[in-house]
């Protein structure tokens, strides 16, 4: 029982109860599948208890966090006495164990809905069987890496939450991401159950709204993550092709391919085999991304800070198991799925959808390859990684192709009866719009031919889909317009990405307090420090005069109280056409006194000084003077670097032990000014220095960036998500219809 004594019993119990109920539900559904329909009630009830147990586990964790019960290792690691209540929730998912727990909570709750939407009897049993396997896998990881582990002693305060995560976006962004992750398991379960039971019809209709909802939620989470990075991290971008970001983006692309495949299956009866593969790829890419970012395989690269929790083996086993199940089912059953021969002519919607799917798959594959670069090159002489330039290079032609395909798709018909002339006539008006946009862009500053092409087709895609959205809306309301609306958004995003990332203007400047400085067409003045107020950290007020208008930005830069980490918060002045983005890089308060331990160096103005050592023989031996009760003289050997020139000086410090009188004998600096020793900390071997004669105004180094049309990126994503939402509502209706049809059939 030694194992249990390290665990918080109620938490461990709820996890084990969940496991037992989950296993019982699995057995129950298996019994239904083997023909005993009466076990259905038992299986459902067991699953209900399973979900309740998981919910209790989550509630317990929140309670422990709110009570700041530092007996629990996880609470100790991520919470602290001064952490406000709403950030206790961010602590919940700040660590790996908590992330798996929130994933599991969503997974188990979603299961209750899957149960209702999976059809009846054996259908439900098949889908739920696979689905329960996916949630039990998460549960096993949590039982292995128990979040309720207790510490041998109870500390008085926790470590606190990483200050980067103390942001309102971080309270909501991760849980939404994990709903998205949990949702990818649903179409997978539908697909696998359908293959397994050779019940090839109907799964697409039922899985479709789930696939769309997953796309929506994952997309929302990605949007929030990008916005958080842009708004708080201060490196100026919204997407850095970081493995963690890619781990959410790759499933989103696969998910996008899947919803188009399902759409094609529902409307045209095509893609019937491919959709099984898409559903598998979407789910497997979530597992693979989790493995990459949480197993520590990338940690060897010292670039990303993922720590191996000792679950790599489990994650590999998990991936292996589901890969084996899906490959076996795909290999043995896929051929039995009836399909229709492809007879679409080239200029038809079907062919173009196939092309678009292939393009998106290519994007997902190259991003996966790039993210896996450290793994792929592991066995080479010098393993390496690829940077953002790889992703940008490779994805630019893909995005262009997508824009071209999107421009034409609205005017293509399924049967392809329109010849090119008819399509061209419809394209005329949108083409005028796209040309106008392109000419505008060229006049503005775009001269790179590839970018010109890109802008033209992005604008064209926007226009043609907008035209079609209006036509659809007029004929049947929002129903059926969702897809086109989403595609309008894609065009808008592409325009925004190209304008804001390829045509931004960034300047790094150092502002001296009170001295105006010209940066591009703006004049910046560092006015004053804004002191700390409540939870608002100290900031630097900068007055900007630009085009006759005046505004103030207050970027912030402060030392985190707990961790002594330097935190940076940019400030953004947004307008419709461009964001004015100011991010602090370095702040020099112009302070002229500094404390240095032996060997340390410090900077004052343009002068770097390093405290080499005390000189105890500056004017006779200090120890002997001390013993004799005479005035003691100690020197401080300093190494000075000024304008690349190194020199040595030795200011003296005289102390009369009898009277307590202190005298400081400064040493001149080679470039003017002087340094005096104003205090000695003998126990730490440190010295306090006062620098005089160097003019030291406070200086602030900032990165000023103008980001043109970045609003299009956010706005476009909102349009995509709105389109997705419209489509989800519509497909949900159709899925219900499928239910009624099945019921009618008996």
């Amino acid at each position, binding site marked *: 029982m030694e194992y249990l004594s390290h665990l918080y019993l109620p938490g461990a119990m709820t996890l084990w109860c969940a496991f037992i109920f989950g296993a019982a539900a699995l057995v129950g559904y298996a019994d239904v599948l083997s023909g005993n329909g009466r076990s259905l009630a038992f299986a459902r009830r067991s699953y209900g208890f399973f979900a309740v147990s998981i919910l209790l586990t989550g509630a317990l964790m929140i309670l422990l966090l709110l009570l700041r019960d530092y007996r629990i290792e996880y609470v100790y690691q991520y919470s602290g006495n001064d952490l406000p209540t709403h950030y206790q929730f961010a602590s919940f998912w700040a660590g790996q164990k908590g992330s798996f727990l929130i994933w599991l909570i969503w997974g188990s709750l979603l299961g209750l809905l899957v149960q209702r939407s999976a059809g009846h009897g054996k259908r439900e049993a098949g889908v739920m069987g696979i689905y329960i396997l996916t949630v039990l896998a998460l549960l096993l990881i949590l039982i292995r890496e128990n979040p309720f582990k207790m510490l041998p002693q109870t500390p008085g305060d926790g470590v606190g939450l990483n200050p980067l995560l103390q942001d309102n976006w971080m309270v909501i962004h991760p849980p939404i991401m994990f709903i998205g992750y949990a949702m990818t398991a649903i179409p997978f379960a539908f697909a696998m159950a359908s293959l397994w039971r050779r019940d090839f019809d109907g799964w697409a209709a039922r899985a479709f709204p789930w696939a769309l909802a997953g796309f929506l939620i994952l997309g929302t989470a990605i949007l929030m993550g990008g916005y958080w990075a842009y708004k708080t991290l201060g490196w100026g971008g919204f997407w850095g092709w970081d493995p963690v970001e890619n781990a959410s983006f790759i499933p989103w692309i696969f998910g996008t391919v899947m919803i188009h495949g399902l759409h094609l299956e529902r409307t045209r009866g095509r893609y019937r085999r491919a959709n099984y593969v898409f559903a598998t790829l979407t789910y497997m890419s979530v597992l693979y991304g989790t493995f990459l970012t949480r197993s520590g395989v990338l940690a060897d690269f010292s670039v990303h800070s993922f720590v191996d929790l000792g679950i790599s083996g489990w994650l590999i086993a998990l991936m292996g198991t589901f890969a084996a199940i899906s490959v076996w089912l795909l290999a043995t059953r896929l051929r039995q799925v009836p399909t229709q021969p492809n007879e679409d002519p080239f200029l038809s919607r079907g062919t173009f959808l196939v092309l678009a799917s292939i393009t998106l798959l290519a994007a997902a594959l190259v991003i996966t390859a790039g993210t896996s670069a450290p793994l792929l090159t592991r066995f080479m002489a010098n*393993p390496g990684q690829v940077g953002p330039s790889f992703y940008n290079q490779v994805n630019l032609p893909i995005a262009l192709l997508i824009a071209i395909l999107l421009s034409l798709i609205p005017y293509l018909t399924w049967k392809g009866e329109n010849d090119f002339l008819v399509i061209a006539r419809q394209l005329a008006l949108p083409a005028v719009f796209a040309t106008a946009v392109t000419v505008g862009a060229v006049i503005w500053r775009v001269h790179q031919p590839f970018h010109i092409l890109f802008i033209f087709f992005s604008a064209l895609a926007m226009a043609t889909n907008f035209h079609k959205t209006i036509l659809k809306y007029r004929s049947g309301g929002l129903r059926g317009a969702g897809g086109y609306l989403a595609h309008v958004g894609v065009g808008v995003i592409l325009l925004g990405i190209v304008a804001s990332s390829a045509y931004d203007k960034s300047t790094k400047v150092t502002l001296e307090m009170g001295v105006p400085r010209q940066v591009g067409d703006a004049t910046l003045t560092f006015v004053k420090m804004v002191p700390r107020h409540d939870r608002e950290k100290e900031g630097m007020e900068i007055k900007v005069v630009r085009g006759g208008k005046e505004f103030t930005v207050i970027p912030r830069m402060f030392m985190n109280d707990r961790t002594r980490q330097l935190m940076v918060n940019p400030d953004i002045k947004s307008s419709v056409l461009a964001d004015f983005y100011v991010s602090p890089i370095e702040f020099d308060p112009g302070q002229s006194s500094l404390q240095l331990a032996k060997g340390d160096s410090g900077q004052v103005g343009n002068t770097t000084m390093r405290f080499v050592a005390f000189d105890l023989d500056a004017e006779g031996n200090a120890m002997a003077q001390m013993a004799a009760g005479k005035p003691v003289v100690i020197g401080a050997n300093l190494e000075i670097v000024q304008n*690349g020139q190194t020199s040595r000086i030795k200011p003296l410090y005289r102390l009369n032990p009898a009277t307590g009188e202190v005298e400081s004998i400064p040493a001149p600096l080679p470039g003017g000014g002087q340094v005096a020793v104003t205090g000695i900390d003998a126990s730490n071997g440190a010295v306090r220095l006062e620098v005089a004669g160097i003019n030291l105004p406070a200086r602030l180094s900032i990165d000023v960036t103008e980001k043109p049309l970045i609003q299009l990126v956010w706005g476009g994503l909102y349009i995509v998500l709105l389109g997705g939402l419209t489509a989800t509502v519509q497909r949900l209706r159709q899925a219900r219809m499928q239910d009624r049809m099945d019921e009618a059939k008996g």
Partner: protein
Amino acid sequence: MKKKPVYLIGALLLLAFAAFSLSSFKETLTPYVPYATARSGERIVQVAGALEKGSSSYVSAQESLYFNLKDPKTSETLRVVYKGLKPANFEDAISIVAIGRFDTGAKVFEADKLLVKCPSKYQGAEVKTYS
């Protein structure tokens, strides 16, 4: 039978794209190399190491940061220059990754990008990227 050429063009396009991505993968792949290999200056590489104590200096006139990277295993050092502002908390860095190319003329590694890992009490250290 009319469709054959379409498939052929598609396959060719895919092949071209695969070749293109492979070449940019190879081209942009920045391998981790020992200092000796980096000194050949043949391509953009990454070097990792610790900051040699007291070796860093910032030359305001050039807006450049000079420092020595030290390999913790072999104690070999490499002179690095980074054109840009000095990263915050630079002196506290526990490890630094520099991405760039060795200038064989000036005998210094010119970093385009620095990844500075500072000690952190949190799970994993805090990594900041400067470019």
